[in-house]
């Protein structure tokens, strides 16, 4: 035992001057960290050592520990620290910890919360859970074993969860005679791997959890080691909560505090930045700006509050703001979007069901989300990208997902609060996955909403109509423009405010830079969708007549609109009929090869599987088709 007695001098202070001790304790900061490794690496022994050295083990616990050690321990007559930190009865018998346990200890400088999680691959979800709240990770390596597969896995996971401080604790140095060469080789090996996965920095420390070397005090046995002890490092490393104060201000609104008619405050935990009375803020996603009137706490109004504080804000303007909104620095607010790429960790025994609706909770927002099949799964031992159709328990994969309402977000790398989410099964209500947003898929949503006093409801109500998009799709020459034109004439006669978008007024202006490759066709439809959406915001009934050959783009446009505003109309004319009509002579050119990428000839047309309206032009003339469309729309 090299260090146990020399450590925490606070003990003396407690006896001599309790007031001074309390003053010191009061000013301690807090660090949360996770220990990664298996029982074989001496993880439980290390944690037991930290608790023991900091007097967090009481005499009665020690007595029961000694009794247990003799009965079930693996250390002969010595104390088996592993027994101290194992919790549930079933686990103790199996000799493995199968959950996340949180332990507490303190030194003169800091209070520590340790997340203790099992290291086996089948407990990946537990490690991810423990890592989610940690500022630092201690990766334990057995000096006799060196870097193992599990070392890589643990390192990958803590890096994935965004932990910036990594300690490589080379343990059991006593069993390799405190040999510097062994330590140096392990550090070199680890460095190569760490660089490969993007870990920029780590702190290697040679230790012995059992003997106490370099835990709380410098070991005489490792004179060649010039760095800090583990405790010194834990005491001085910068805590994320402090650096969060330098980022732009964000506070997800948890709850609106309205105890009486005179007070209306917005309560939440500041996730980043700082806020002062008078600061300009923007409510996202509504986009309204206001200024901070007061920062209310029971301890008095504050002139300033920082990340990590729970406060209640009042505004100088009466504006809409509720749970799920984010109060943000007006000059640099977060974006809102509804399609994302994310890395998912699956945590349920029931595998992911692609495209099923799950509840998604992020910050204080809860929406319905649909996850696409994984782009790939990550082999967490090899870090290879593997093909996958779903994700099973403990699997990690990269997926895209869409939400039914836009969410206010930031990439996980910038904000754990606005970038980290959980998925909840709608039937069982269980938490089935954790996710980290990599980026949003729609550039357009990065433009902040400009809130207008005259909103879309106001536009529509003045026109006394419900805005709609009548989306005509079909082959070239199928009759889309003809029928759409007939429909618009009827709507106009009914006093409706309409607008027809077709190739003539779009291809020659807005989209004249686009050709007919697949990429350009997709962009063509995307722009038309956005224009149609703006027009519905203006209260119009919009008719669009474009081939729009791909299902996924029509779906994309559908998802931009409220559910009942998008009407897909398939003008179903067989290719031979359309080609026989060939009004513009285009089929002839395509057949001759002078016109490339022509839908139906050398570019595919994906017919709608379930359109709201299907018009068979071989049996229905244009005016009857128009009547049918009108009746369907207004009968619904």
């Amino acid at each position: 035992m090299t260090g146990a007695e020399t450590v925490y001098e606070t003990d003396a202070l407690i006896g001599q001057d309790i007031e001074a001790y309390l003053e010191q304790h009061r000013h301690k900061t807090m660090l949360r960290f996770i220990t990664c490794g298996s029982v074989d690496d001496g993880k439980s022994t290390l944690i037991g050592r930290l608790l023991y050295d900091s007097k967090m083990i009481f005499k009665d616990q020690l007595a029961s520990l000694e009794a247990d050690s003799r009965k079930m321990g693996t250390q002969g007559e010595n104390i088996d620290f592993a027994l101290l930190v194992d919790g549930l009865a079933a686990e103790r018998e199996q000799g493995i910890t199968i959950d996340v346990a949180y332990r507490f200890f303190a030194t003169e400088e800091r209070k520590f919360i340790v997340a203790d999680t099992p290291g086996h691959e089948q407990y990946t979800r537990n490690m991810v859970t423990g890592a989610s709240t940690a500022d630092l990770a201690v990766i334990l390596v057995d000096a006799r074993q060196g870097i193992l597969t599990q070392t890589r896995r643990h390192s990958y996971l803590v890096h994935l969860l965004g932990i910036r401080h990594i300690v490589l604790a080379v343990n059991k140095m006593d069993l390799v005679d405190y040999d510097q060469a062994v330590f140096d080789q392990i550090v070199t090996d680890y460095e190569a791997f760490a660089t490969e996965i993007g870990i920029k920095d780590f702190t290697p420390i040679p230790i012995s959890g059992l003997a106490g070397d370099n835990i709380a005090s410098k070991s005489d046995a490792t004179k060649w080691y010039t760095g800090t002890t583990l405790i010194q490092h834990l005491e001085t490393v910068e805590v994320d909560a402090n650096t969060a104060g330098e980022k732009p201000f964000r506070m997800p609104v948890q709850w609106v505090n309205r105890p009486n008619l005179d007070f209306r405050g917005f309560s939440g935990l500041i996730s980043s930045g700082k806020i002062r009375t008078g600061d300009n803020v923007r409510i996202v996603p509504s986009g309204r700006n206001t200024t901070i009137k007061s920062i209310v706490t029971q301890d008095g109004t504050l002139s300033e509050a920082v990340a990590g504080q729970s406060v209640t804000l009042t505004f100088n303007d009466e504006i809409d703001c509720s749970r799920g909104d984010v109060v943000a620095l007006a000059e640099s607010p977060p974006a809102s979007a509804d399609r994302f790429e994310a890395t998912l960790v699956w945590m349920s025994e029931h595998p992911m069901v692609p495209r099923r609706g799950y509840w998604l909770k992020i910050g204080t927002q809860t929406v319905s989300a649909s996850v696409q099949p994984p782009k790939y799964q990550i082999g967490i031992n090899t870090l290879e990208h593997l093909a996958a159709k779903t994700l099973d328990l403990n699997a990690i994969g990269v997926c895209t997902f869409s939400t039914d309402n836009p969410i206010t977000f930031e990439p996980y790398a910038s904000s754990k609060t606005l970038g980290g989410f959980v998925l909840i099964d709608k039937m069982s209500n269980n938490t089935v996955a954790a996710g980290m947003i990599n980026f949003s898929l729609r550039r357009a949503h990065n433009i902040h909403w400009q809130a207008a006093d005259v909103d879309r409801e106001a536009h529509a109500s003045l026109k006394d109509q419900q805005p709609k998009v009548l989306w005509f799709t079909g082959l070239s020459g199928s009759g889309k423009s003809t029928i759409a034109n007939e429909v618009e004439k009827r709507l106009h006669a009914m006093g409706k405010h309409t607008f027809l978008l077709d190739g003539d007024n779009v291809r020659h202006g807005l989209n004249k830079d686009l050709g007919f490759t697949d990429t350009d066709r997709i962009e063509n439809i995307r722009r038309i969708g956005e224009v149609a959406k703006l027009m519905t915001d203006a209260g119009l009934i919009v008719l669009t007549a474009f081939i729009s050959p791909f299902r996924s783009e029509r779906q994309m446009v559908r998802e931009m609109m409220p559910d009942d505003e998008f009407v897909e109309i398939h003008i179903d004319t067989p290719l031979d009929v359309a080609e026989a009509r060939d009004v513009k002579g285009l089929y002839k050119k395509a057949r001759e090869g002078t016109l490339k990428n022509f839908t139906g000839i050398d570019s595919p047309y994906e017919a709608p599987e379930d359109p709201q309206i299907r018009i068979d032009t071989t049996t229905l003339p244009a005016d009857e088709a128009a009547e049918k469309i009108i009746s369907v729309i207004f009968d619904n």
Partner: protein
Amino acid sequence: MTLTHLQRIEAESIHIMREVVAEAENPVMLYSIGKDSAAMLHVAKKAFYPGPPPFPLLHVDTTWKFKDMYALREKAAADAGMKLIVHKNSDAEAQGINPFDHGSLHTDMWKTEGLKQALDLHGFDAAFGGARRDEEKSRAKERVFSFRTASHRWEPKNQRPELWNLYNARKTKGESIRVFPMSNWTELDIWQYIHLENIEIVPLYFAASRPTLERDGLLLMVDDERFRFAEGEKPEMRSIRFRTLGCYPLTGAVESNATTLPEVIQEMLLTTTSERQGRAIDHDAAASMEKKKQEGYF
């Protein structure tokens, strides 16, 4: 500005309480009148200031608490502007269940069953409790949001992962949640907070000369005339205080001269036995707390 650990855990507890109020239909705060409850109630007042906490306090009464505890109970609720619900298990009352004759059945009937009855009676779907993870080995793994089946059972294998500070409060009809907003506080944190924030606690936490009796290794206080003496037993005045408060015939005192909070904290830090040793309930098997929890004890 660097926040201290107390500021951070206080903010975390406030965040948890607000999440529950935002997502649960009918929350309640379990109030046991002890120091942990006092600290939790104080945090709740801060969380919802300037209004009062938007839920009632529930005390599951065993009728055997210390007199000083009953006195503070009414005052604390009134000071917070909160409704106080006191529930007594009428079956236990009818059967005359008491700590002298019925041992662990007393705790089971009054406390465990009483709590289930009260939650069912009022239809509470979320109940705040003051338990901390540092109290006991099986609690180190307890979630902040702990789910209970419709029959109030705790299934250790069926608890939800809790990541970041995202809490999934969704539940199926009949299920309820026990929420532990003080999970990450230690005993020292609680004492320090009471000291710094000047929170009123039951005077029994401070040393005074009180009538006592030593029995089965516990130092008991004779709090009222219901105390049953064995032959030859006689109360003796000792300077004692309590580290934890429960039913007085089941709660062991420690001999002490600590009459101020700093002195109490000093003794706590220098002592070498853990807090729960003063409770008769934990002296069974090592896994007893886990077993009690599965049955619905808080």
